[in-house]
């Protein structure tokens, strides 16, 4: 069974770990753009995707400088996390060079912007083909960009550009709207909706360990509370506790090791978890063991103090009599 699932784990990544995307809204203002998105892990339950977008509308070669301009070269790395097979959230960073001039205006601006921000959106299946799928993405990014720009004007001959000498820098909000086509071997539908089955195994193991510890603790401390202090069938315990607390502690440690740590470690070893998760659980068991011992010390100390007090008051009573 474990073998079977690991087999499908290996097969899954070939199904669309790479997506190609283009934003239609930017095409409507004639800015060619393309994005490439890659799953950050080959696991079927992967939700993390890294991407990079290139937008490039170049300066054209014309006899006269055109009266309107919107030139852009932008590079935009991006990270996104799919909450399910529809919605995602993420962040981006971007750098771009730009030149923009509105028709009818005498002044245009040119410079660069750099910044980053957050993005979110949804992806819906559009068409399913035999070997690939086409999805549509509705998205929004909002960031803050530092903009360094200078003014320019078209010169008198209308064939060249005069740049102003002063550059101004400021921080501006930088939104991006997306209605994008996404091509992938598999549609987003059914891609980002599986969870790691090992997560469940891990949670179960953890729960079992906790239950085992609780039981051990309960047995020990119940015994203590009731003044029996016999954790397992050993009558020497009571004497030990009173005469030699250190030996008593060593005994308890051995008991804890046997009834909790060894069992937990054994269960961890036998579980289907990968080594990293096993190590994590082992460390956790260690920390639980130390915590329990510390608690034990505290309780013993308190108990000793209580007994001493009782003895003292008993002595006092005797004296008084």
């Amino acid at each position, binding site marked *: 069974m474990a073998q079977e699932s690991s087999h499908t784990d290996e097969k899954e990544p070939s199904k669309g770990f790479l997506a190609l995307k283009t934003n239609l809204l930017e095409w409507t*203002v004639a800015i060619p753009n393309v994005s490439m998105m890659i799953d950050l892990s080959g696991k079927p339950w992967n939700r993390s995707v890294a991407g990079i977008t290139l937008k490039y509308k170049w300066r054209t070669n014309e*006899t*006269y400088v055109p009266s309107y301009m919107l030139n852009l070269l932008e590079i935009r790395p991006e990270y996104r996390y799919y909450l399910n097979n529809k919605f995602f959230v993420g962040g981006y960073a971007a750098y771009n060079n730009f030149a923009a001039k509105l028709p009818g205006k005498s002044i245009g601006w040119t410079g660069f912007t750099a910044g980053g921000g957050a993005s979110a959106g949804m992806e819906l299946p559009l068409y399913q083909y035999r070997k690939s799928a086409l999805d549509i993405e509705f998205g929004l990014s909002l960031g803050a960009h530092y903009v360094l720009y200078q003014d320019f004007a078209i010169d008198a001959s209308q064939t060249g550009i005069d740049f102003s000498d002063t550059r101004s820098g400021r921080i501006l909000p930088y939104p991006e709207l997306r209605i994008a086509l996404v091509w992938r071997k598999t549609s987003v539908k059914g891609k980002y909706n599986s969870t790691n089955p090992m997560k469940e195994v891990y949670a179960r193991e953890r729960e079992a360990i906790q239950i085992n510890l609780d039981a051990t603790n309960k047995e020990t401390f119940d015994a203590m509370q009731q003044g029996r202090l016999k954790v397992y069938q050993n009558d020497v315990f009571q004497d030990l506790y009173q005469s030699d607390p250190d030996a008593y502690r060593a005994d308890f440690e051995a008991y804890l090791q046997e009834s909790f740590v060894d069992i937990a470690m054994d269960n961890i070893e036998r579980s289907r978890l990968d080594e990293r998760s096993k190590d994590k659980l082992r460390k956790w068991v260690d920390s639980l063991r130390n915590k329990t011992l510390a608690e034990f010390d505290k309780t013993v100390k308190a108990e000793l103090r209580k007994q001493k007090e009782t003895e003292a008051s008993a002595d006092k009573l005797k004296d008084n009599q």
Partner: protein
Amino acid sequence: MARPVKAYLLVMTLLLLLPLQGAAQRLAIKTNVLSLATATPNLGFELVTGERLSLSISAFGSANPYWSDHSLGEETGTSFFAMRPEIRYWFNGRPLTRFYAGVNVLAATYDFPLWGMLHKGTAAGPGLSFGYVINLGKRLDLEFTSGAGLLFYWGKRFSGDTPLPAEDTMPDTKGYKLTPNQLGISLVYIIK
């Protein structure tokens, strides 16, 4: 067999074959209402040529529409004529329905003043388009289109307040730009 009989048989055979192979073939006629609103008469035809492909050809033009700029004199006014053949790919395997992407060539002649400048010449270039079609009825569709492309142009350009000189004395201009080149909301009628 006499020649007229041969011709008759040939025509009859073709007529018989047409509906057979034309089961999926459709022909539509359309007009862009956005263009009409800017006083630009236009007409287009679209022929379905396969499961996913169609061939569209449209023409539009105007002479002295209401928004013409007469700043360079009464005799100048906007006039243009353009044609655009286009091959469309229908994503869902059913032409004239839902999303498509197209490759087209736009060719135009133009003559218009804009912001005190007279532009006159010819432009042509390849473009890409994307659109969505809603089926309104059995024969009526509503089509939304937008597109962008390269436009190479060559012609004359003149600015100034002197009377317009003879055309061949105006300075030449040429170049190319990447520009939005179509936007439409069209009514489509399927003829057959």
